[in-house]
């Protein structure tokens, strides 16, 4: 054992002077004997190594190519319709493609309804997911945590159509008192202002709550995973300083899991932005433009495209919907990019 503890670790003295941010905790584990093996493998790549490398870079390229191809396909189909559009594509609230010779379509309301419902869902789901993840990983005893986590995971297995039915048949009437209160007493705030629907059921508000339930499991699962991996030795560091349970979480668990929580939330947001059938069932169509209220109705990108799917026979009207799809495509990319920036480029920072 004497040998083990004093055995030379040649890397460390060099590190002693370097302030490089990347020379993090790993300085301690880096000296794994396993490293030598990998280096040798790189010097003289064997047959298996070459095949494996070809396979992995090949499939990587394939994914990139597939995404580029989808983007290109959408663009090629959308451009003729965009050129034939008589309304302003970005600012018009109408989406009228009944007459191929006189197309009038814009995405203003699609964007508003999509973003409002998804962000509202996110605002509802994020704190609840955080609470559940903390409870499951930090507070609950194992025999409670397991079944509880299982039930949350089950929520993800429920088909969208069921959420839609539940949303409109059960949730919408149940939410009516809350919605009425918000509109009547907090209506001065634009989000709770009276909307463009004659009723308070089947609004963006209702749809957002349904979406929140739908994205809760994914956010919870990712967050729970990163929290449960918070390193034991950082938790002990906090405990040994005399931190209470909550202080331990604040010092050792939250900083570690923060970026994973954000990444999970962005995954959830992506799911909400693209959700189709549940939204189509729950949120009612409106006849006047949206006023940015949660009590508005209307279509999201996904629900509009789905509602029109049976009419995709003529190229120009179809192209209009594809143009809308393209915007959704870009939107999810932007959400992903933001997630990466916020998460600092790594999931477990």
């Amino acid at each position, binding site marked *: 054992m004497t040998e083990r503890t004093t055995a030379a670790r040649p890397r460390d003295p060099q590190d*002693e002077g370097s302030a490089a941010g990347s020379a993090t905790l790993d300085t301690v584990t880096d000296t794994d004997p396993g490293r030598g093996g990998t280096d040798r493998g790189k010097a003289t790549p064997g047959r298996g190594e070459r095949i494996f490398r070809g396979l992995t870079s090949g499939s990587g390229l394939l994914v990139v190519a597939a995404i580029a191809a989808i983007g290109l396909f959408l663009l090629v189909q959308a451009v003729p319709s965009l050129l034939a559009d008589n309304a302003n594509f970005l600012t018009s609230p109408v989406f009228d493609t009944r007459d191929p010779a006189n197309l009038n379509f814009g995405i203003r309301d699609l964007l508003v309804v999509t973003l409002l419902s998804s962000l509202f869902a996110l605002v509802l789901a994020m704190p609840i997911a955080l609470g559940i993840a903390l409870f499951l990983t930090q507070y609950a005893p194992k025999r409670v945590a397991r079944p509880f986590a299982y039930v949350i995971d089950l929520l993800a297995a429920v088909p969208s159509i069921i959420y839609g039915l539940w949303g409109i048949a059960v949730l919408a009437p149940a939410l009516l008192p809350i919605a009425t209160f918000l509109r009547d007493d907090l209506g001065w705030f634009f989000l709770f202002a009276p909307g463009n629907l004659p009723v308070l059921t089947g609004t963006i508000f209702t749809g957002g709550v349904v979406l929140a339930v739908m994205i809760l499991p994914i956010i919870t699962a990712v967050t729970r995973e990163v929290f449960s991996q918070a390193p034991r030795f950082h938790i002990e*560091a906090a405990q*040994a300083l005399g*931190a209470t349970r909550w202080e331990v979480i604040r010092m050792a668990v939250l900083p570690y899991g923060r970026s994973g929580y954000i990444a999970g939330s962005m995954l959830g947001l992506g799911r909400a932005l693209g959700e189709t059938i549940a939204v189509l069932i729950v949120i009612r169509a409106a006849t006047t433009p949206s006023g940015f209220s949660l009590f508005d109705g209307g279509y999201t990108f996904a629900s509009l495209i789905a509602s029109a799917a049976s009419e995709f026979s003529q190229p120009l009207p179809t192209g209009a919907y594809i143009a809308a799809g393209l915007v959704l495509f870009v939107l999810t990319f932007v959400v992903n990019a933001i997630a990466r920036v916020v998460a600092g480029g790594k999931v477990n920072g």
Partner: protein
Amino acid sequence: MAKRLDLKAVDIFYGDFHAVSDVNLSVSPRSVTSFIGPSGCGKSTVLRTLNRMHEEIPGARVDGEVLLDGEDIYARSADAVAVRRTIGMVFQRPNPFPTMSIRDNVVAGLKLQGVRDKKKLDEVAEASLRGANLWKEVKDRLDKPGGGLSGGQQQRLCIARAIAVQPDVLLMDEPCSALDPISTLAIEDLIGDLKKEYTIVIVTHNMQQAARVSDQTAFFNLEATGKPGKLVEIDDTEKIFSNPHEQATEDYISGRFG
């Protein structure tokens, strides 16, 4: 400030597993006591009962008395969190909080105790870093994350963090086993300085280290796997390494040195 530690008939359990049995020992203030013995004999387990970290493991339990200047830290009126605020601990693997700055790492314990005065925190940060022989190396980057230091520097940062609250006792569990020889020497020197002010208990696998840094050495042993570990003897370090009372100690020490 440095306090005396007495263990009386301490038995330690992990659930049904009796890990260590009947430990009796005393540690005087401003001295260094080292725990040596083969792997798995319960050195870390005993150390972790001294600041009530042991009970964080589900099912873990301690019998007997651990007295800090005569007061039982396991008394019903004693609170584990409060106990840990007055007994510092340094771990085998350096564990600064990676996202906190060097300065915030050092004063993390003080902040937990409610100290908010920035001037006071800055003073303590400097004094503790000086005390841990790290000040010169980090004084220009106190706001950089603690994770950016080398292993040896991180361990000294952890020591600075532990002494920032002026603990009654400082516990160290193989603090050098993840470090290179130069950093190890730096920490051993530091222990020599710290004992002027603190009561120190250190677990080490390295017998030369025990001989170099400690005033008193406790030898733990295991009769057989599955049996509880035992304190074989505790005596002045010089005595243990030259002329131990027990044959088992003699065997262990000569085996390792030979």
